[in-house]
């Protein structure tokens, strides 16, 4: 039977809601894997999450392109770990790696892989700690005509003795000199520094006393491992002191002195931010050895010929095609086989030809990973690095070489491993908290609104039903994971959802207080409260949306669930709560004021009228 014209048809709205629920749940059960479980975050199911923050050396935002490239590379690497279901997500300038399950320790090491370069070792490394490092050596896998001479003029133009370089201080990189090879002591031979590492800085030591005119950087402090607290400043300081262009132009003794004065910092601010066009003073990864390294690329002012490879390898990690670790065919131990791609092989050939019996350092993120000797020119684009590697070391070196080169360098901002048991406990706690919260709300609503309270509960439950379906679907479609913060978001949104009902019911009460019947109060109250509900939800959605767009990390989950419940709340209020109330208002038995909990309002209206009635009589009596 059609209701009279102009009346809302509750059945229609409820039908629409049922349709939505059916549609959602058929999507849940008949698409994807058909499993009705939302995707859980690692804090709920256990696993490892690493947040890598791109390190921008100059404070600039890294480009989209390089971030995406880095993401792809890291994804490849994570998949290489061989664990199930890893995920690499970009979140602003962060990359968030999530590896579920308990066996995911490896993920934490991914952040350290970054910029890879090949740099020639100038002079000989000096031990940082008393123990000498094992000397690495490289055996060529391809042999060619040996041309062990360096090219270019070899005139040593540096001032004699322990030079007074202050007089030659220049802002631009000094022209390259090929003096070094001649004065270099054979690398394998020495571990004794010319200067005591702990000796005070020689006042004439080149880098130690070279403050550029524009910024007063105390290189003595820098060399002793003291940097500014401000990261950008610290990077600048390390660059000024440890990437002094003159490092390549000085004689062996001065270089040794500089090396001796330098202390490996516990936390190197320069990491990943060294300039490949400048020389570098740095340590190896264990901080046992100190090196002076040549620039990777020559200055761009044309002062160096294109075929001059005496100092410059011109090779970065991007030239590496593949790296595989294996056992040494000629003896015990492990080796790493390396192939270059494109011009890389050619460059490597020229570089090794020009630097036979010198050391070349594999520099990862400013730290020397390995510094093998070049035994002979290596032509043909592939090479083998051998040394006293354990299998794990060879593996890790191969990985570094293979995947090491990211277009950006990263720092692990947050690394978290949550055990499965703890995750389960958190999930349980979250659900208990939600359950308790919901139960309290139920009790209060029943107490205060009676029959309308039942409606509230019903609406909340229905709202929960669609929230769950949407959760499952979003997990499937956009990889939305429910984490602890998300659960908190839902619990908090119980309040917001229930509030729409409260606003509606209170308006209903207002109308009835003015003396209207329940039936005639419903449409009036609805029109009024609808506006309020819409605007209030709008504000709260706005808050969630802005949070979602701008916030980082776990906060996103919270904002997302909050915003989602706000929207779904509107759906429930419009399609369920209002039609149901309107249905009740038409039933004589159900709209009994005692049942609806609005008896007080009715009573108040009666009181008011009685009161004003009494007053008017009083007036008459006077």
């Amino acid at each position, binding site marked *: 039977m059609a209701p009279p014209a102009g009346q809302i048809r509750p059945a229609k709205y409820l039908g629409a809601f049922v349709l939505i629920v059916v549609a959602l749940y058929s999507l849940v059960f008949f698409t994807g894997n058909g499993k009705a479980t939302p995707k859980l975050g690692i804090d709920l199911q256990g696993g490892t999450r690493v947040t890598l*923050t791109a390190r921008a050396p100059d404070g600039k935002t890294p480009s989209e392109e390089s971030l995406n490239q880095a993401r792809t590379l890291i994804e490849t690497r994570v998949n290489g770990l061989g664990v199930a279901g890893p995920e690499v997500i970009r979140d602003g300038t962060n990359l968030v790696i999530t590896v579920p399950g308990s066996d995911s320790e490896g993920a934490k090491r991914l952040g350290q892989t970054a910029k890879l370069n090949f740099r020639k070792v100038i002079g000989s490394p000096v031990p940082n700690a008393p123990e000498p490092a094992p000397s690495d050596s490289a055996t060529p896998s391809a042999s060619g005509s040996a041309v062990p001479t360096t090219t270019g003029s070899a005139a040593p133009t540096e001032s004699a003795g322990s030079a007074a370089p202050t007089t030659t201080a220049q802002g631009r990189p000094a022209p390259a000199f090929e003096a070094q090879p001649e004065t270099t002591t054979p690398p394998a031979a020495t571990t004794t520094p010319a200067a005591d590492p702990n000796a005070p800085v020689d006042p004439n030591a080149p880098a130690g006393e070279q403050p550029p005119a524009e910024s007063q950087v105390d290189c003595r402090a820098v060399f002793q491992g003291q940097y500014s607290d401000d990261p950008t400043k610290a990077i600048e300081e390390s660059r000024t002191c440890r990437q002094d262009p003159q490092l390549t132009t000085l004689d062996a003794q001065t270089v040794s002195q500089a090396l001796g004065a330098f202390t490996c910092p516990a936390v190197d601010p320069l990491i990943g931010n060294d300039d490949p066009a400048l020389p570098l003073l740095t340590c190896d990864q264990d901080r046992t050895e100190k090196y002076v390294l040549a620039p990777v690329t020559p200055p761009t002012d044309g002062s160096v010929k294109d075929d001059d490879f005496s100092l410059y390898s011109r090779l970065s990690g991007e030239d590496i095609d593949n790296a595989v670790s294996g056992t040494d065919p000629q003896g015990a131990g492990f080796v790493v086989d390396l192939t270059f791609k494109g011009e890389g092989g050619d460059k490597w050939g020229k570089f090794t030809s020009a630097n036979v019996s010198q050391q070349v350092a594999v520099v990862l993120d400013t730290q020397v990973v390995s510094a093998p000797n070049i035994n002979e020119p290596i032509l043909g684009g592939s090479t083998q690095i051998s040394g006293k590697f354990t299998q794990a070391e060879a593996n890790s070196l191969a990985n570094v070489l293979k995947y090491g080169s990211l277009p950006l360098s990263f720092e692990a901002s947050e690394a978290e*491993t949550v*055990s499965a048991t703890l995750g389960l406990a958190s999930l349980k706690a979250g659900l208990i908290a939600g359950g308790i919260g919901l139960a*309290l709300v139920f009790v209060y*609503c029943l107490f205060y609104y009676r029959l309308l309270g039942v409606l509230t509960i019903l609406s909340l439950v229905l709202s929960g039903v669609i929230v769950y379906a949407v959760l499952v679907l979003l997990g499937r479609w956009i990889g939305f994971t429910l984490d602890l913060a998300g659960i908190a978001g839902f619990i908090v949104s119980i*309040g917001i959802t229930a509030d729409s009902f409260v606003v509606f019911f209170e308006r209903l009460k207002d109308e009835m207080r003015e003396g209207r019947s329940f039936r005639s109060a419903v449409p009036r109250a609805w029109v009024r409260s609808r506006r309020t509900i819409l605007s*209030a939800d709008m504000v*709260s959605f706005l*808050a969630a949306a*802005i949070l979602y767009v701008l916030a980082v990390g776990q906060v996103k989950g919270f904002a997302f669930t909050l915003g989602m419940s706000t929207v779904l709340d509107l759906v429930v209020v419009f399609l369920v709560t209002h039609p149901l109330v309107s249905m009740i208002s038409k039933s004589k038995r159900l709209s009994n004021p005692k049942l609806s909990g609005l008896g007080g309002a009715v009573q108040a209206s009666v009181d008011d009228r009685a009161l004003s009635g009494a007053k008017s009589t009083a007036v008459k009596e006077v």
Partner: protein
Amino acid sequence: MAETKKRNVFQRLYVGNGAFDIVGKRKRWYLVFGLILLICIGSIVFRGFNLGIDFTGGTRIQMPAISSSGTIGVEEAKESFEKAIGKEPAATQTVGTGDAATIQIRSETLNADEVLKLKTTLNDDLQPNGGVDAISDSAVSASWGGEITSQALIALIVFFIAVMIFLALYFELSMAIAALVAVLHDVLITAGVYSIVGFEVSPATVIGLLTILGFSLYDTVVVFDKVRENTRGLLGLTRRTYGEAANLAVNQTLMRSINTSLIAVLPVLGLLAIGVGLLGVGTLKDLALVQLTGIIIGALSSIYIATPVAVDLKMRDARYKAQAARVQARRDNLARKAATGEATAEVLSGGDIVESTDDESLQAELRKEKAMAAAAGVPARTGKSTDTRRRPTGKKHR
């Protein structure tokens, strides 16, 4: 009047007939909340915050406090840590109770190898339930919290601007400003409470602080909606001043504010109880305290700060001042008459009877609603009734 006195506080609350003079005594509330605000700011400035691992950087290890041989003590965990790393941990504590109890160890940043070693040692020494897999760790760089905070601040500013625009369009500028004042007040007080309680500030806290903005504004919007409704066409009337109309609106929404806040607070209380008592789970606990404070303060400020400020701003408008003067004049007039016969004393009490002044707009909207429903529905209407409805508008296509 004897009859009015008879109603107790709860009845007055329930009925919302404007019996609480909130706007009129606003100076008192400004003073009270100003004092609270001062205390909070003082605490923030002098006491500061207990910054969590996300701001200071470090490693946190978490493991079940139950082993096969009983409960694991804090001291044992400390010793084991020292054995593994050679340094003392920054803090060791037990959180949670019963089966869910965990031991948390915080230290300076450890690298992956050290963490692995530590986990193995802890497992060997203490044998917590679940073995080495049950030990969780998280490492955070010192800049992470800072990054989250700076993002949060950006979000805060963007949010303020967006909300200002929204409210200024939806209501009017004076209400937008008043809402903003209330929100700022809420944020400061919540932050102050956090500083006083000394809970650890985590990124979740910072974010929770942002979400209470939503809450606070939500409340304010609801109250302002009623204020707007009550003050529509007020300038042409001499029944009550703007302030009195706003006070009536506050009273009318008082019960709603209380109900809403209660309903919102109950789940958060559950969250807090579970978070603190049972598990010591960071995110839950942090968010819960912020939300709890925020909801309560947000509800209070929408009543005691937002509306009075809106009234104060509004009363700077000459037209409203003139209207208030007219209301006063009328009352004086009535009072003079009342001197001869006390009949109209009721008027002086500031409007006992709840009523809304926007009846016309409401009627219009209801008519539209009905027309829409009719148009969308089965044409079961009789020609006669629709014609009656249509005639006044003069539009045929409606």
